[in-house]
Each structure stands twice: as C-alpha cells, then as structure tokens.
C-alpha cells in the first residue's frame, strides 16, 4: 500500500433553520496520500465573528487529502501577524506552510477578514488577501480562502466554494417516503431543498451556468422532466411523454437537454431544444438506450445500451450519426460522465455482484477501477477534474463519497439520517 489509512472524524453542524430537514453531516477521510504536505492553520485572531473561519479552512484543506493538518495543541504559538511568527519554531515542529489571519468587525454587520499563507522554510509570504464579508457570507469567504490556498500549493483550482446537488429519502413511517432534491455547499453545509415529493425524484443535472437544474419527478404518478430555476423556484415541465422520461443531461452550451424517452417503443436517446421544444431522435435500437452525457465540446453524446446483450457504453455525434461501442471490458459499463478536459469517462463498472466506479481514458480505452464498494453509482466529476463524487451504500445507509482520479484519496460524507444518493457537482 503506497497510502496510509487514517480515520478522522470532523463533526460539522449543518443545520439549516429555514428548512428544518437538514441533517448534521459527518465527513470521514478514509484514505489520504502518504505525501500529504504538513500545513498549520493558526486559529485566526477574531473578535466574536459568528463563523470560525480558520476552523473551516482547516477542515477544507484536511478533507482534500493533500495536506496533513497540524493539531492546535502542538502549535508553538498563535501568531496572527507576520511580525509575530518565529519561523524556526514552525520548522522545529515539522511544518512546511503556515496560515495566519485575523477577523475584525467593521460595523454594519460587516467583517474584515485577512489571511496570509507563509512558507516556513523561506520565511516568505506566498499569498496575502484582505476581504470584506457580511456575517452571512463568512463561511463562503472561508471556502474561498481554502480555494486560494489550495490553488497556490497544488496548482489546481480548489473546489471548496462549489456546490453539490443530491437526492435524499427519509422514511415517514407507514410505508410513506419523502424524497428531496437538495443543494448544499461542497462540505455538506447549508443544505437547501430544491424540490420535495412523496413520489421519487431522480437524476439531477445542473445547467452549465449553475443557475438551473433539470430532474425527473414522479409526482404525477408517471415520470416527467422538469427544469427549475434555483433562484426563484420557478419551474417548467419540459417532457411528459408516455413511458420513460428520464436521464436529462444539459448540453455544454445550455440550449438543449439530452434525455431518454420510450414513447416510440424501447428507450432511446433524444435531444430536446429548450427554446423551440423540438426533439431530435439520436438512437433507434430495439434495446435499452439511456443515460446520455455530453462531451465537453458538445460534439458527442455517450450513452448506455444493452444492444449487445449487456449494458455497455456507446458514442454518437450529438447531431446524430453513426453509433460506436466504447467499452468491451467487463459485464456492465453504464452511467458515464466526461471529465472536464474531455479525455476520460467515469462510469459504473459492474463485475459479478460488485458495482464500482471506474475511469476510462479515451485515448487508450484502459479502464481503471477506483473504488471498492459493492454498490457504487452515479459518479460526477468535480469542476477541477481532480475528484469524483459518487453514491455508495452500506446496508440501508446510502452516503456520498469522493475519490481522487488516481484512486488514492477517499472521503465519505455521511448524513445522519435517511439515504443520500445521485450527487452532482455544480459546474
């Protein structure tokens, strides 16, 4: 094993008073890289700010798996200015980088937040920012600081200020269930309910601008696809044909939805133009064709089909054309999604009774299995392409997990009640 296992529990308090359904969330980092870089985030000097910004930054960086965060107890001091930092002390406790900062109330409910990222060995500053934030935005500011630090130290864009969508189900007793489509911060905080129904909700898909969401709802006792504007809650039913209306996927230019309809017989892939409402049928097989996903350039659509006997991935030009099979290894390859650079596909890869998340490089067609669960599904790339969010199951508990593209870092987001599934990382 070239990585070590560590279990770390950070219990966060993700209550949202307005909604009331928000469950506290636990994040476990189940695997991290051995080469994790030691970083100390010194508790920021703060005058009663309602959010502990340095704690949020510390948790974000920890969660990424790239860094080994220093415990507060072992810190040789609590400097909040560079003048107060004795770099030799921090070298002595094995730290490579130091984050210091201050939060000062600026009146009118505003706070001035400043932080500096320091290189312990060169005694120099790598980053320094001052920001003004309202009390309500302090947590967002903290994630933003994490993004800046992450990008400086890894060269990759951070995804801590991002959002995720997912479906939750709670048993209401008496065989009744409540299904919710929720959107939360990338760390599971601030969950907001987008839609709620006693009938199933499925397949959330973000518009490329992150302002709308398409999803499937059975609220009228049959499947229909809705497009909802997140800011207003206003929504439109865009597909309610006889049979299946499923698997909506937004085109990269935001003008069309690829979807699955069975109105003409077996499930086939169609492209719906959202402004003209015209439908273009892409596949005509007698088998199951479903789960379309767009290449980032919008030129191709990859989908699942069992036309060869077992579910495998196929590709077709998004304007229509020749369909070609992409996967040949394994009994079951389904529910693909492109990496942001368009070079890889992530998919559900089934072998016997195990369904795991795998990545296939399109150039070589080599499939690399990343996870080890028995029922892993719904993979979704982080916008920076470094992590894949997916749904996992243990017994009756459905939870979300994230894995790095090389499979070496794993984290688990456990909601304390109900089942959580079908995660989708906002663009």
């Amino acid at each position, binding site marked *: 094993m070239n990585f070590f296992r560590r279990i770390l529990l950070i219990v966060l308090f993700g209550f949202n008073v307005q909604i009331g359904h928000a469950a506290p969330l636990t994040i476990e980092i189940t695997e991290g890289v051995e080469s994790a870089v030691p970083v100390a985030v010194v508790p920021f000097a703060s005058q009663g700010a309602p959010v502990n910004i340095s704690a949020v930054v510390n948790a974000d960086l920890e969660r990424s798996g790239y860094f080994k965060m220093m415990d507060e107890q072992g810190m040789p001091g609590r400097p909040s200015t560079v003048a107060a930092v004795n770099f030799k002390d921090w070298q002595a406790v094995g730290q490579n980088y130091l984050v210091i900062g201050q939060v000062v109330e600026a009146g009118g409910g505003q706070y001035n937040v400043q932080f500096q990222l320091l290189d312990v060995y060169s005694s120099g500053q790598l980053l320094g920012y001052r920001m003004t934030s309202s009390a309500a935005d302090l947590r967002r500011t903290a994630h933003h600081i994490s993004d800046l630090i992450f990008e400086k130290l890894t060269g990759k864009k951070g995804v801590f200020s991002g959002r995720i969508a997912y479906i939750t189900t709670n048993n209401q007793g008496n065989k009744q269930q409540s299904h919710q489509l929720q959107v939360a911060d990338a760390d599971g905080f601030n969950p907001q309910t987008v839609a709620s129904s006693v009938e199933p909700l499925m397949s959330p898909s973000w518009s490329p601008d992150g302002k709308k969401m398409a999803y499937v709802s059975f609220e009228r006792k049959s499947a229909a696809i809705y497009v909802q504007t997140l*800011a*207003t809650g206003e929504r439109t039913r865009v597909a309610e044909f006889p049979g299946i209306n499923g698997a909506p996927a937004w085109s990269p230019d935001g003008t069309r939805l690829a979807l699955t309809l069975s109105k003409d017989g077996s499930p086939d892939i169609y492209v719906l133009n959202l402004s003209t409402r015209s439908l273009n049928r892409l596949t005509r097989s007698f088998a199951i064709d479903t789960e379309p996903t767009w290449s980032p350039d919008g030129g191709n659509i990859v989908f699942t089909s069992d036309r060869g006997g077992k579910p495998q991935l196929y590709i077709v030009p998004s304007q229509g054309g020749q369909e070609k099979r992409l996967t040949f290894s394994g009994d079951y390859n389904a529910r693909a999604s492109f990496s942001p650079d368009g070079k890889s596909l992530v998919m559900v890869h089934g072998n016997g009774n195990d369904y795991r998340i795998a990545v296939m490089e399109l150039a070589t067609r080599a499939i690399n299995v990343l996870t080890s669960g028995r029922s892993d599904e719904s993979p979704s790339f982080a916008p920076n392409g470094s992590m894949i969010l997916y749904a996992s199951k243990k017994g009756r508990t459905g939870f979300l997990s994230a894995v790095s593209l090389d499979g070496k870092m794993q984290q688990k987001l456990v909601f304390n009640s109900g089942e959580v599934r079908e995660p989708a990382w906002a663009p």
Partner: protein
Amino acid sequence: MKLNKTLLALAIGTLLLSACSDTDEKDTSLTDGSQNDVSGISDASTSGLNKGSGMTGSEMGGSGMHGLSGNGDYASTLGPEFNDPNNPLSKRTIYFMLDSSEVMPDFVPVIAAHAQYLIANPAQRITLEGNADERGSREYNIALGEQRAKSVASMMKVQGVSENQLDIVSYGEEKPAAFGSDEEAWERNRRVELVYQAR
C-alpha cells in the same frame, strides 16, 4: 465559472489597489480582494434558494398515495377471490430473474387470471408498475423495470385485454419492496406490481 470570476475580480483588485497599510514589508503585503463578488454569488443563488422551495410534498405528491407498495388495497375490495390465497387473483406481484424481463412459467397462470378478470370487466383499469433491484445504475433500472411491465402487458394483450385498460409506469429501483443488499431483498424487488385502479 463563478470561482473564475471571483478570482479574476481578486486579481483585478490586486492590480488596482495598493498594499495594505498595516505592514511595510514587501513580502508580507496584503492584497485587497473585492469580496463583493463573493457576496454576489450567494445573493444570486443561495438566498434565492431559500425562497425557491416554493413547493411542498403535499402540493407535489397529490392525495391518495399508496406509499411504497403498489398493491394498494383497492383490489382486495373487488371480491373474495382477490383475498383467497388459493386463487391466482390474490397474487398481484410478478417476480423476475436478474437483468431479465422474461415472465417465468410460475407466473403465467397468475397473469392469465388477471387478464380474464380484465376481459370480463372492461371498465376496470390496471397499472403495471415495473421495478428493479438496486444493482447497477438507476436510469438503466428504470428502463429494465419498464421492459418487465411491458412483458406482462403484452401477455395480457395477447389474451384479449384492451390496451385502454393498461397503464405502465417504471420506478426502477426507486420504490423497493424490501430494503437490504442481499439476494433475498433483490429477489423481492425485481418485480411488476399489478395495481387495480379505483373505478
């Protein structure tokens, strides 16, 4: 996208604004970042989301739910034969093999009995609810559930049931009859439920 914008705003802020006043050293200079853009993000989305939950479960779900099980008890009110365990009409769930939508021989008489009842009662409508076990991807399982319901429907139609009496919906793995991740639960979930509609 938004992050990019914010970073861009911060970068512009770096260019336009002078170094922080509370330190003189060059290498510890602070950049004034325009946090307004960050607030802008939350105004546009998060706060809107609060208002956005303009629908409730009751609004969306409608009334008269039969909950998890498709076997709402309307059928049991149709006559004693629907409750007699020796009568095939008391069986209203058809089970399937893994990844298959082929009706197994055991269930042929059950489907035939329901078909005969529907032929004799042409005003009676029935919904065939297709389901799948949890394995594999969700939308593929929706398709598999529909294939199963269509298998039952075509068998009924061959026997003379009118298309107008049959509705099909697939819930895939979304409405399990049994929870759990073992063979027993999977067997119970690979099914079509025959749901008699109230007249």
